[in-house]
Each structure stands twice: as structure tokens, then as C-alpha cells.
């Protein structure tokens, strides 16, 4: 129960941040990626601000023996840079550039961004379900 509540707060604050920073607006995101055109640096500030807060916050949090509501920190174990990482990130970047949407903002705007967001979510969630199904072990 406590863990669910903590997750709700986390998701809610995350969503509020995405909306306030206008990352839920595809043309704003494309304006940032339009580096060789009318570049809008706003998103660089979103990332810098988020990164700074997380960098400082993690210094304190990850120094503790365990999180408040769990017995261990669940950190990624992979260390190697491989083709899957680079190929996957490149694929993601192409979809991000085409649409102006990444997973967080796409979900955060799911209820108010019209039929276009439905198309995008159909492709994104459908492909994730298929991927996980094919990669089940």
C-alpha cells in the first residue's frame, strides 16, 4: 500500500513536470531537435535541471543501505556498450524526431492530445507488448 502510494506520487510529480516544461507538446520537442533550424533550447534546460536535481539527490539516496520501502536498490546491472544499446537508442531517436514524443510525455498527454496520440500510443505500446512477448524467457 505504502509502495503504491509512493509510486503514485512519483508518477504524478513526473507528469506535472512534463506538462509544465511543455515536453508534452510535440512541436516544442521538435523545435529543440531542430538544431540546424529555428533552434529552441528550452528542452536543454529541462534536461539540465532534471539532471542536476537527480545527480545531487542520488548522491544522498544511493549512499544509504536501502530505500525506505524496499530491501534493495534495483539498479541496472548491464555495463557493456553493445549493438543492441546503440541500435535501440538510434531507433528510439528516429521515432522521437519523427513524432516529437518520447514515452513519458506520450503517456502524460494520453487523455487530452486527441486521436494523434492514440495512433502513437497504439504503435508504442503495441510494439512493446510484442517485444516482451517475443523476448520472454
Amino acid at each position, binding site marked *: 500500500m505504502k509502495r503504491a502510494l*509512493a*509510486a503514485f*506520487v*512519483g*508518477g*504524478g510529480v*513526473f*507528469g506535472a*513536470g512534463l*506538462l509544465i*516544461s*511543455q515536453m*508534452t507538446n510535440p*512541436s516544442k520537442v521538435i523545435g529543440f531537435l531542430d538544431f540546424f533550424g*529555428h533552434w529552441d*533550447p*528550452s528542452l536543454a*534546460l*529541462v*534536461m539540465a*535541471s532534471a539532471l542536476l*536535481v*537527480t545527480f545531487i*539527490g*542520488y548522491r544522498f*539516496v*544511493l549512499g544509504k543501505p536501502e*530505500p525506505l520501502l*524496499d530491501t534493495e*536498490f534495483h539498479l*541496472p546491472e*548491464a555495463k557493456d*556498450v553493445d549493438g*543492441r*544499446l*546503440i541500435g535501440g*537508442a538510434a*531507433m*528510439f531517436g*528516429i*521515432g*522521437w*524526431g*519523427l*513524432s*516529437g514524443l518520447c*514515452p*513519458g510525455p506520450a503517456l*502524460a*498527454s494520453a*487523455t487530452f492530445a486527441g486521436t494523434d496520440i492514440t*495512433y502513437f500510443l497504439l*504503435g*508504442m*505500446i*503495441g*510494439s*512493446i507488448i510484442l517485444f*516482451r512477448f517475443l523476448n520472454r*524467457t
Partner: protein
Amino acid sequence: MNSFTPISSLIGGALIGLSAVWLMASSGRIAGISGILGGMFSPSSDKDDKTWRFVFLFGLIAVPLLMVLIRPDLDIVRFKLTGWPLIIAGAFVGVGTQFGRGCTSGHGICGNARLSKRSIIATLTFMVAGILTVFVAKYIGLYL
């Protein structure tokens, strides 16, 4: 045409950072949206695991909805690519983030904050890919 919005960007970014720190401090979890979403459909995920993922995503969707209901001026959404081609763009994002094990949040914020080599490489890769894609999409007239 978008204008530079430094104040709302800094505030929004700080909230995203706070959420990431909170999720790590409380549950020991990386606030990576593609990972949280993908894990919901992982066969190894038990009921407890699915619950926190679902509730996180519920908050991610519900709070912005509440906010635009209270403040309709926050509802600024302009698509540059519309209709069914967005299914393809969505599939690129879906498959790409599962292969690359992260997106703008998991790699771009959480992973880079841990100075993970994988995340730094992934972030540079999707940034360059995104910038090149926008350059080409504009050139061939794909956008509205």
C-alpha cells in the same frame, strides 16, 4: 514557431528530477518510463511488481489531466506529424527503447545522473538520431 521558455523549463525539469530522486529514495527504482511500462508486460513480473508500475503510470496520466482541467491554458499540444504515420513513429520508440533499455528519462536523466557509461552513450546516440531525423523530415517536407 516556439519561443524560448526558460522558467517553465527549469521548474518542470526540477519536478522531473524530484520525482526520480523520490522513486529511488522510496522504492529503490529508476524513474525510466519505457522500463516501467515495459516491465508491466514482462512475464517475470509478479503482482506486486505490476502494481507499483501500474500506479506510477496512473499518476503520470491522471495528474496532467487534472492540471489541464483546472488550467486549460496548459493544454498546448501541436503535432508536426499526424495520423497513421504516428503508429510507425510509436513503434520505433517502443522497439528502440526496449532494445536500448531506456529512453529520455531512464538513460537521459537517471542513468546520466549515475554517470553510467551505457546511458551517456545511449543519450548521445538518440540525440544525434533525433536531430538528424528532424533535419531530414523537414528537408523532405514530412511535417505540417
